[in-house]
Structure formats: structure tokens, C-alpha cells
């Protein structure tokens, strides 16, 4: 099966990874498959995979990504199996179903 290392179409990834290669597991992000290092911090793993925006804000729909990486700002909120969680406070495990909150609900 081909490995999908990157999610976005960015030519260059914004982060260089110094850590030794870890076994990867498959998760999905908005329905698309993504292979992330098992046990890695979820927010860090998504950033390393080129995912910069984790959600759109409920107020203006603006894109947001991790800001503090220490559980304080809540900008890394992402839906994991339907539950909104702080990506910077959880670890990658096989089969996570990730959905980026869509932000403002337009009626």
C-alpha cells in the first residue's frame, strides 16, 4: 500500500523531523487516509504531515492551528471520533477518525 506522508499540497513542509522514524498507523482526516507515527503527539504529528489548519472558528470561520502546544489555548481543537478534543494533549493511535470542525454554521 502506498504511504501517504503528506496531507496538504505544500511543496515544502514547514517542519523538519529530527526524531527517529517510528512505525506509522493509519488514521483519517476529513475522510482522507493519513499515516502518522504511533504514539506521537497528535498536534505535532499533524503539523509534521503538513496540516496547518485544524479547524475553522465558530465566530468568523477563520482557520486555526496549534498555538501553545501545552493545553491552554484550545486552538488545536479537532473532532476525534465525533468528540472535540485538544490535539496537543493526545497521542496518535491506529484508526483515529479526525474531522476538522467547520466553524460558523450558516443558516
Amino acid at each position: 500500500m502506498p504511504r501517504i506522508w503528506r496531507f496538504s499540497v505544500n511543496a515544502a513542509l514547514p517542519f523538519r523531523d529530527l526524531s527517529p522514524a517510528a512505525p506509522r498507523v493509519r488514521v483519517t482526516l476529513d475522510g482522507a487516509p493519513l499515516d502518522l507515527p504511533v504514539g506521537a503527539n497528535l498536534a505535532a504529528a499533524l503539523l509534521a504531515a503538513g496540516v496547518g489548519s485544524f479547524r475553522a472558528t465558530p465566530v468568523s470561520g477563520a482557520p486555526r492551528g496549534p498555538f501553545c502546544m501545552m493545553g491552554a489555548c484550545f486552538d488545536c481543537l479537532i473532532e476525534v471520533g465525533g468528540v472535540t478534543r485538544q490535539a496537543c494533549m493526545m497521542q496518535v493511535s491506529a484508526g483515529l477518525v479526525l474531522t476538522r470542525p467547520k466553524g460558523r454554521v450558516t443558516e
Partner: protein
Amino acid sequence: MTTVDLIVIGAGPAGMAAATEAAGLGLSVTVLDEQTAAGGQIYRAVTGAGAQRGAVLGQDYLDGAGLALAMQASGAQHLTGAVVWNIEADAEGITVTWSQDGHAAQLRAARLILATGALERPVPIPGWTLPGVMTAGAGQILLKASGLVAERAVLAGSGPLLYLLAAQMARAGTPPLALVETQGLRDTIRALPHLARGLRGWRTLIKGLGLLAELRRAGVRRITGARDLAVEGQDRATALRFAAGGRTQRIACDTVLLHQGVVPNTQASRALRLDHDWLAAQQCFAPRLDAWGETSQPGIFVAGDGAGIAGALAAAEAGRLAACQVAHQLGRTDATARDARARAPAARLGAERALRPFLDAAYPPAAQVLAPADDTIICRCEEVTAGQVRGWAKLGCTGPNQTKAFGRVGMGPCQGRYCGLSVTALLAEAQGMDPAEVGAYRIRAPLKPVTLGEVAALDAAEAAE
């Protein structure tokens, strides 16, 4: 409900040292921390992944492993991944409630030491909410815990942590594109009178100079006295713009790491309604303490950067002092033994604190960050601007808690952690008042979001008891 002598919240240098000392004095101790391992912010992942990167992170970082190992060996119980969301004090003791893997649990203790550390000071500048903009601390956490270095990054703001991060990135072979600093010559001159007294903390000073030399050797571009910082970009950060040397400059980049120093994390101490003071020199609030670290609520102590920023070495010493007093209060040591044991930590704490007035004066938060332009967002969660808060002040809004009646500022998931100080400063400015008089947000439990299921399960367990 189980009862222990002492609960310590936070396993950073302050909490680790406090727990080790208290366990050594014969107390039963439980340490709660939401991180997956001991270390706190400075020594994050020090006994795990971080150790592999010792050459990049430096000896000061690796030294933290000693504290973590000592705590492990001390007999104190350390619960990882434990997010504390409620603390209640009554005449007999303190009840702490936390969640671990989605399950809530409670523990009672005779004494409590809050060692919850610091947060990055908010840096409200145009564009600071764009993906690709993070705190310098976040950049460092990515490096320590995950081995990630931002490739095309600009570091911006002021404070020694920026030098450390820039040096660590350079050692990793990926130096930042530039270090854009908001402090300038005037601040250095203002800091000089504090230097003589600060020389007691000469070790830290030498280290700082060493970092600057390292950055020079690595060829990292440094710009000081920068103003009008703004991040450009539509869907993500693409450049940092600023004015320096009389002209507007622009550095294209993928990541902007902001820093204006750190401030005490007062969520828990506020929720407990402890007395706080405004520290003008550090432009932040901190709980009021006696020499041992005891707060206005007897039996509750605060140690480390949560009590005012003094750094990791000071945090550990403050933790030891608090533990000495807890052991004394619980009858394990008499006053003479306590004082003998406290002498060395107190002396080292004094030396560490001596350099602070110099550092505070040399690296003050930028005026434009304390009083942002009207159209700058100050509340990231609810996207409230500085101008809106100023407008409410004109309409007669006098205190931070009242702002919530005008708009949703401070009511988002971060519960005011990254807008509280800005709101206080803006209201103080609009009314010509002192921030101490304006006060801060009232914080209510839960300190971190919990599900109704967790609360219900806890109620059921209580009813069954």
C-alpha cells in the same frame, strides 16, 4: 475518599522538588500532572524522547532528569495524564478532582501545593491568530517532545527564552531566519541599575551571554527595537512585517514564534479565590504568599513560576521551602529542624531571584502588546478586538467580569488564559486606573472542560460511598 498528607498539582521543577522533599520528610504525597511524563514546561519529556536530543537542547535541560528521577525514587505517587479541574477547600482539608483517560477521580489532602507554572504572555498583534503563528514555548515543546524544528521560522518579541530557542534551533541545523526583538537600547539602559544587585545570579547571566555569542557564531540575524509587528497571510502565516531602523521590513517565512515573556498561570489560585497582587515589574498578577509560599488560604501553598516568574532553579527551591513548612505544620519536623533544612534552599532562591529585576527591565513586554491597536484581536476564542473592549469601557464597563455582559470576551474554551491580562490592561488604560484596582476575571470550576458523563460518574461514586 482516600486522604493523603499532601497533594502537589504540577510536576515541573517546583512540583517535583516539593514532592521529593515532602516524601523525604515522611509525608504521603500524590502529584497530579496533565502531561504524560514529569518535567513541566522546561524539562518536558526529559526522561523520554527529549533525552535523545541532549546535544540540541543543552545541559541545563538534561539536568532536569535529576529532579524527575529523585521524585520517582522518593515514594511520592505521581499520576500522569491527570487533568485537575476542581479544587475545594474546607476547614479540614482540600479536595482535588481530576480526569484521567476520561474518568474523573477525587482525593483529599491535609495540604495542597499548587505548582502549575507559567503561561506565555499573550502577544496580541495583527495576524497572531493565523495558522503558522505559535508561541516560542510551543516551538520549544515541539522540539523537546516531538523532535520538530520549524524550517523557515522567524522568532519575534523579547526575553531570554528566545535566545535559548534560537540557539537550540541553530544546534539542530535549522537556525531561525531572524530574531526580531521588541526591546531596545533604552530598555538595556533602564536595566543597568539593577545589574549590581543581580550579580548574585551571575551564573544565569553568563549563560545568557554565552547564548548570544552562540547566535552570533551561527550567523543568526538579530534586529532589536522593532515596532509595529504584524503577521501577514490569508489562510496561514506567510511573513512577519515590522518597523525597525526607521523603515518597514518584511521577512517571508512559514512559521512565526512569538514571545513576550511568561506570566504566572493563576487559573487554580483564582478559582480558589486566593488573594492576588499586581506585580508592576512583571505586568501580571500573582498570588500573595508568605516566605514559605503559603497563600491567603491556610494550608494552600504556591511554588514556582505560578507565584511570579523566577525561573526553573528558583521554582525547585521554592518547592522545597513549601514542603519544609508543610511537614512542620503536620507535626513531622519542629521549627528548628525545619529552619535548618530550609536554610540552603532559601539562600539559593535568593540568589536566583536577584537577577530578575535586571531581566524584567531589560526584556519588558512591548507597549504595543500591552495596549494593542483597536482592530487587533485580543480574545482568540471569541475574536474580540482591543477596540471593542475600549468601546465597552466608554459605555461604563469597569471590570473584567462585566465585559462578559457586553460581549463574549473570556467566555470561550480557554477561559481567559490568553486574554485576561489584555482585558485588565485595556480597562485600566481606558479608565486611567491601576491594573490592581481593575482586577482580573473570576475563574470558576471546571478549570478544564469535562464531559457531563465524567461529572455524573463522580456523583454516582459519591452517592455509593
